[in-house]
């Protein structure tokens, strides 16, 4: 089976259904990838992105078996005829979750796994692994224990392991989805470097449209296992109807440009197109001028709640030192009032989680004190504090154990010693609150990721905590899932729950929180509202945070007030944004 060498990958009418799933994860996909191309793949959860990446190197259908029709041809070899060990020499795949892809004890051991499996001479194996680690910026960490690495380092290590296999084609499946802004920037820099000289063909699955717009030559959008779009990224991002069908959001600048175009506040020269990157936007948008916005709208600027509200969380000189003299948190003094919506920001290891875990007693201060609802927490057990402070963890699968949604939600109440009848009534109320009443008897593992996350919130909400600590509520979810989760959180806040949200997503901060606490190296370095935060280069730099794209654009164009969301941006031009899809 030979193919012209002009194509790196040719996917021909390829369909695939996992054994016993009864659904076509991919149906009738056809696409060609040219050598040296930078191809991005987008799509909502369940659109078939991961399945497609695994089809490109033969894991589908060899490792994950199922029903197949059509074929995938990689550098002339059909993946159905050749074994995976042959295909992986040509297509390297960086899968999701670096944790399960690392088998070596040290960085060098792990990066060497691929070439060692090929049986190459020892010197060659070490050379390749070392070179790959240098390429991902880990040349000085060859002997680092893989168990002691940060999330960003693990992700870069996995990329190095795939680079060391020397394939012409590299496929990356959402390599930045679980990283902090710094880690994301580092990994994306590697992707850029890999694809810079056109020697490697790079296929990238990514959910951040800003990153895609800036990098990709070509975009393929999947929807329900089919190719919805295949072409220039600008053609897709400029097409509101197609975005809605795919359930994706465009880059901020596209959203802003579309709104201004519709209101005749922006003109695009004939033959031009909607700007999709920051630099294009800076060229296209006129510098802000008061004359451009005769009816400039006054926005309801988010401000911190008045001081009269009751203080629910008060930390005084709070510090925590882990065994081995690791200072994780030092001298944090802050108070949070009832009804606030506070975002906790900072890079991984900055002390965000350490701080949050004190709030419900999972950690005890090693210095200073923490007062919840006016009472010191030192003599309270976690199970007592659970009623005051609910903690929703990042990964719902770390807590789901019951056979039904109802049982899962009732677990905490059972722990409090409630009677079954009383639990039933309370669970019904919570189910209603989170909009899951029709799923009460379902098995939690049959729910989608977004629904499981919602279930985790519900199971904590059942205890009626005044404060909800929510750790990365949108990680691993597509835009629709994230939006629906955030509207739930916002609703809970409006109903009086105090929200403390740990997040890496600066757009979420801009949209929802009224106050941000920024941590760096265990210290609280800033306590500001989003406007102050995103207009202070100093805080952003110290906290290794990146302002939302729209905030940067507004600053360059000279918008008068600090702008952190697309809505605020458009208001500067006197344009109201319709947020419906």
């Amino acid at each position, binding site marked *: 089976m030979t193919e012209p060498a002009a194509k790196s990958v040719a996917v021909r009418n390829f369909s695939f259904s996992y054994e016993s799933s009864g659904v076509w994860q991919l149906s009738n996909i056809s696409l060609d990838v040219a050598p040296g191309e930078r191809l991005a793949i987008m799509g909502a959860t369940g659109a078939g992105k991961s399945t497609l990446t695994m089809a490109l*190197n033969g894991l589908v259908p060899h490792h994950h078996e199922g029903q197949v029709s059509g074929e995938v041809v990689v550098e002339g070899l059909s993946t159905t005829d050749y074994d995976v060990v042959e295909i992986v020499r040509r297509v390297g795949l960086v899968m999701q979750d670096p944790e*399960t892809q690392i088998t070596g004890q040290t960085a060098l051991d792990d990066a060497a796994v691929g070439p*060692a499996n090929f049986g190459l001479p*020892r010197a060659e194996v070490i050379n390749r692994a070392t070179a790959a680690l240098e390429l991902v910026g880990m040349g000085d960490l060859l002997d680092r224990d893989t168990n002691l690495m940060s999330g960003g380092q693990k992700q870069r290590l996995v990329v190095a392991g795939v680079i060391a296999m020397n394939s012409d084609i590299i496929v990356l499946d959402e390599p930045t989805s679980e990283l902090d802004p710094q880690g994301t920037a580092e990994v994306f820099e590697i992707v850029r470097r890999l694809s810079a000289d056109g020697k490697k063909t790079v296929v990238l699955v990514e959910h951040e449209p800003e990153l895609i717009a800036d990098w990709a030559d070509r975009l393929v959008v999947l929807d329900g296992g089919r190719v919805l779009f295949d072409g220039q990224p600008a053609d897709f991002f400029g097409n509101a109807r197609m975005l809605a069908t795919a359930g994706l959001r465009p880059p901020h600048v596209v959203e802003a440009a579309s709104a201004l175009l519709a209101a005749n506040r922006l003109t695009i020269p004939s033959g031009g197109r909607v700007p999709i990157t920051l630099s294009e936007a800076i060229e296209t948008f006129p510098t802000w001028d008061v004359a451009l916005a005769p009816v400039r709208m006054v926005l309801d600027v988010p401000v911190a709640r008045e001081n009269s509200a009751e203080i629910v969380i008060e930390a005084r000189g709070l510090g925590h030192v882990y065994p081995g003299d690791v200072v994780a948190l030092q001298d944090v003094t802050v108070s949070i009032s009832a009804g606030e919506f506070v975002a906790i920001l900072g890079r991984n290891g900055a002390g965000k989680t350490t701080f949050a875990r004190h709030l419900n007693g999972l950690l005890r201060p090693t210095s200073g004190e923490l007062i919840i609802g006016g009472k010191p927490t030192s003599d309270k057990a976690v199970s007592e504090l659970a*009623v005051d402070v609910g903690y929703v*963890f990042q990964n719902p699968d770390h*807590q789901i154990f019951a056979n039904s949604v109802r049982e899962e939600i009732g677990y905490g109440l059972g722990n*409090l010693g409630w009677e079954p009848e009383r639990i039933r009534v309370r669970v019904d109320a919570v189910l209603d609150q989170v909009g899951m009443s029709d799923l009460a008897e379902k098995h939690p*593992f049959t729910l989608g990721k977004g629904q499981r996350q919602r279930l985790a919130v519900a199971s904590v909400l059942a205890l009626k905590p005044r404060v909800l600590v929510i750790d990365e509520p949108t990680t691993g979810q597509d835009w629709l899932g994230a939006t629906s989760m955030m509207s739930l959180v916002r609703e809970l806040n409006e109903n009086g729950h105090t929200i403390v949200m740990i997040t890496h997503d600066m757009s979420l901060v801009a949209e929802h929180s009224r106050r941000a606490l920024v941590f760096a190296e265990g210290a609280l370095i800033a306590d500001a509202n989003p406007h102050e935060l995103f207009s202070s280069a100093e805080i952003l730099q110290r906290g290794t945070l990146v302002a939302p794209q729209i905030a940067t654009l507004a600053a360059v164009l000279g918008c008068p007030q600090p702008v952190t969301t697309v809505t605020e941006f458009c208001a500067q031009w006197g344009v109201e944004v319709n947020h419906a899809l």
Partner: protein
Amino acid sequence: MRFEYQPGNTLLHRLDVRTKLFGFVAVLVMTFLFQQWVPNLALALIAAVLMLWAGARAVVLLKILGPLSFIAIIVAAFAAFAYAPTETTAPEFSRVVGSLFDGSLPLTVGGISHGISLALRILTMVMLTTLLLITTPIKHFVAAMRQVRVPHFIVFIVMTALRFIPTMQHRADQVLDAQRARGARIDQGGMVRRIRAYIPIMVPLIASGIRMSDDLAAAMVNRGYGATPRPTALFTLQAAVRDYSAVVLILAALTAVVTLRIMGWWSL
């Protein structure tokens, strides 16, 4: 972790893992050859000294031996009483020094020696195992397995299991925290209640373990696992002069002990 490799540069760290394994087996054979308590005490003391030399702090040593000594004492007591006077070879060991239940359970000199020996063997074995683990990086054990031609899939299983112990430990902590945040009380109540309390911990942990093993399998194939039956080894063990000298010394000691033992020393 008490049983993890602790980097160091003592002779014990530098010896080849194969030499250390040989020494380990040799001492085990010796402790079983010695039936009297004095030489066993000597071996236990040697093991303790070696541990301190290898850099284990005295506190760690006590932490390991503390809980064990309780078991050791019980074992010693039972063995001492269970030892029948007729089993001894020399009359002085049959001398009864006391008894329980009106003389139906006599305690002999030989019995005491036997009981203490058993207890000391346990302590010696635990100390030596710890010594081996704290002075030898995992990668040396793996290399040793590879060099004695253990099939690659077995080497891989061992390597992966060791690599994932901290990961699973971390996962278990996460699950435990998530359930504690919902008011779970794991350490309270009777036996049945405690076991029931562990279900919310075990179910997510097992489910996540299964998912991880599934992903790991895909990741292995993805890295070309199985392309050759014997992947290139990055690290191979090299025996040095010190290893040969150590092996000679160990052999000499072992021969001496066996010879003396045949001549009837240290038996009961």
